[in-house]
């Protein structure tokens, strides 16, 4: 058993989303003052801080609205890497691993877990740097597979259903006016032409009223 690792997140940012995404682990959550200690599945606490800081530069909280930290993106990524995706359970990983053209996609042996471990190591003391220096570090690795994954996972963490641990309080969906999987628009589809119509967003568990087991938790 690995030592239990945590990331500290502001309780106010987690809010009601705890019910959706963290309920299964509620016994392991700890409050410390205004903060919640969220148990990690893959990252160490230090690694999680580096990832959280990098995601925040990719999708910052700013005048446009909430950012990756507000959305709990690091919790999302931690769970993906701990689950079948992080272990490449659904990728063809039979050798030989040959170099090929970009049109054949990623041909390497490394799993997303491997790529993150190495990528985090290379970022060093990233979490303690000022924003401008953080940006410079990210620009330097912009062409790497690690950055490609990190960027994609940041978007996924902001915009996926809260069952996956990100999009806390639906901040991602609220930002762009996406209502979630609401199902019924038969009387609306041919209306609101040229006007923004923004139904109140809701997540899948809330809408269906049923427990939803995400891919990363299957078999848990």
């Amino acid at each position: 058993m690995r030592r239990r690792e945590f990331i500290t997140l502001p309780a106010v940012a987690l809010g009601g989303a705890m019910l959706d995404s963290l309920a299964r682990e509620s016994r392991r959550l700890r409050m410390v003052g205004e903060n919640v200690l969220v148990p990690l599945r893959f990252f160490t606490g230090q690694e999680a801080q580096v990832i959280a800081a990098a995601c925040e530069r990719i999708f910052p909280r700013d005048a446009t609205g909430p950012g990756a930290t507000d959305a709990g993106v690091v919790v999302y990524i931690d769970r993906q890497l701990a689950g079948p995706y992080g272990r490449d359970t659904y990728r063809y990983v039979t050798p030989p691993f040959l170099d090929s053209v970009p049109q054949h996609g990623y041909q390497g042996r490394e799993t997303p877990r491997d790529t993150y471990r190495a990528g985090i190591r290379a970022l060093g003391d990233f979490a303690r740097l000022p924003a401008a220096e953080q940006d410079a570090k990210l620009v330097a690795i912009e062409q790497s597979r690690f950055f490609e994954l990190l960027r994609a996972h940041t978007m996924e963490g902001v915009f996926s259903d809260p069952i996956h641990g990100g999009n806390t309080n639906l901040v991602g969906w609220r930002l762009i006016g996406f209502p979630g999987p609401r199902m019924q628009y038969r009387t609306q589809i041919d209306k609101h032409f040229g006007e923004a119509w923004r139904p109140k967003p809701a997540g899948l568990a809330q809408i269906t009223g049923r427990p939803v087991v995400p891919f990363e938790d299957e078999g848990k």
Partner: protein
Amino acid sequence: MATTLKPVDVVIIGGGFTGLTMAKELCSRTALSVLVLERGVERSLGDYAIGMDELDYAVRLRMMQNAAQETITHRHSPRATAVPIRQYGSFLPGTGVGGSGEHWQGMAWRYFPDVFELRTHLVRKHGASRLPGDLDVRDWGVTYDQLEPHYWRAEQTLGVGGKAGNLRGRIIPGGNPYEGPRANDYPLPPLKRAYLSKLFADGAAKLGLHPHPTPSALLSQPYTNPDGVSRGACEYCGYCERFGCMVGAKAQPTNTLLPVLRAQKTFELRTGCWVRRILHKEGRITGVRYADASGRDVAQPAAIVVLATYTLNNVRLLHLSTVGMPYDPGSRQGTLGRNLTHQVIDRTPVFFEKPLNRFMGAGALTDRVSDFDGDHGLTGSEGILRLGAIEVQAAGARPIASFGAMPNAAAKRNWGSEWKASAVTWYDRSAPLVFVGEHLAWRQNFMDLDPTYTDKFGDPLLRFTLDWTEHEHRQREVGSDIAKKIARAMGAKLDDTHPARGPYDATAYQSTHIQGGAIMGTSPESSVVNEHLQHWQMPDLWVIGASSFPQNASHNPTLTALALTTWAADALIGRYLRSPGKLV
């Protein structure tokens, strides 16, 4: 040592649209025992309601074949070494009962009449000597007129809604004036139209073009089909392609065919059964060999085998079972694996002043102009033989896939505050116009077995040798120019970009339309199955689905695959069963 089970009359390999359609024909019209072997799992309507999750379904591809167990390899030319496509990208084959028919978009097109006689058509138009030597387009051996009643059967089974453009030769405004003549109007009217549909239709009409709705297998109204199966209407929820339908409005094998089959005593469906070989002796079928859900090696004797999986596995199983002669592009001898085609796609990003509410939509809520499809709109100066259509999809936009579309100059990089602000601004104000072109067959594009890589059982993977030619590059360029004209007529903004002339990209989604490899035709020298989809060398083997298409059309293939299935079923039931032997 394999366990040998009790014989059945017919084994159908694959529980998707074509396999279950064939099962329905056989079970309702004959007394034969029919066993469908499906390697995936069963799903129900309830699974689809809790499956409205973009991440697990549209990004992690939960309904698709698991590439870890089996994929394809790809190379751009016969001189290159193929590598495995380690994650599916340019097409997404489904798994589970219903197959790709569960996660399709429900676009239920008929092909143009000339597609079925393309060789004859092009020779008549240009002269045989003016066609490129590497062009391998064919006549199918079946004509549109012969298939027309079968199209109609499929449209009734699915409950297709649309606007007829050619009713028994009479051109009807608002429909597709270029379609083949229909004997009957659609069973249902088209879906309702979204704002984006209206913008497109108005823009295209300003240019004198003929926009028309895409025929939809998502019900526009509650409907009961001729088999007595009732389904409710589409809710425009925006979760269609890559998802199963949570209200059952989208025609899927599980909600249109299985309810009928479940009532048949002669029907059996076994899931988790991975067929590895078609068994044969002295030119006759003896059965199949498969690994069941527990991994047990099973021999299932059968008098007739219908191979009804997705194109890839149809072709691969024939190769693995050493049925037929593999195609050699050098000598052009052999037939198995030839005429591999995909789809020629180009997307022009377009930006609008007003919000689109694009979260609403439906997979087949699509509008097209067909004025340049086939070759009726070509002037001769374009340097191509066939072109394609332009369409806009109000299919429902989900945030992970859609966030980030913006005009080229809007942000320096694709992350950070400047980018985020722009992406939020444009999020609900952009949509691509899509050029959807025919992919012609060329001699160098084919499928055989890979010499190096294997699946989870150690069987060789299927290998694609496939690349774009100058013809496809030109199609995209011409198509993109037309799309831009329409976009401007819609009052939209767009970048001045041109389609990249890159090699075939296995990572970027095009369409799940892979055709060929076991093509139909009128001669055993140039095709794998005859015009009834019966194998030329093995009369008790029938190979159905898009593997039989000698070339693709601009139109989505499902309805044609279904029409060909009942066409084949008529020959199998009406002729073969009376006198089991070669029909041609």
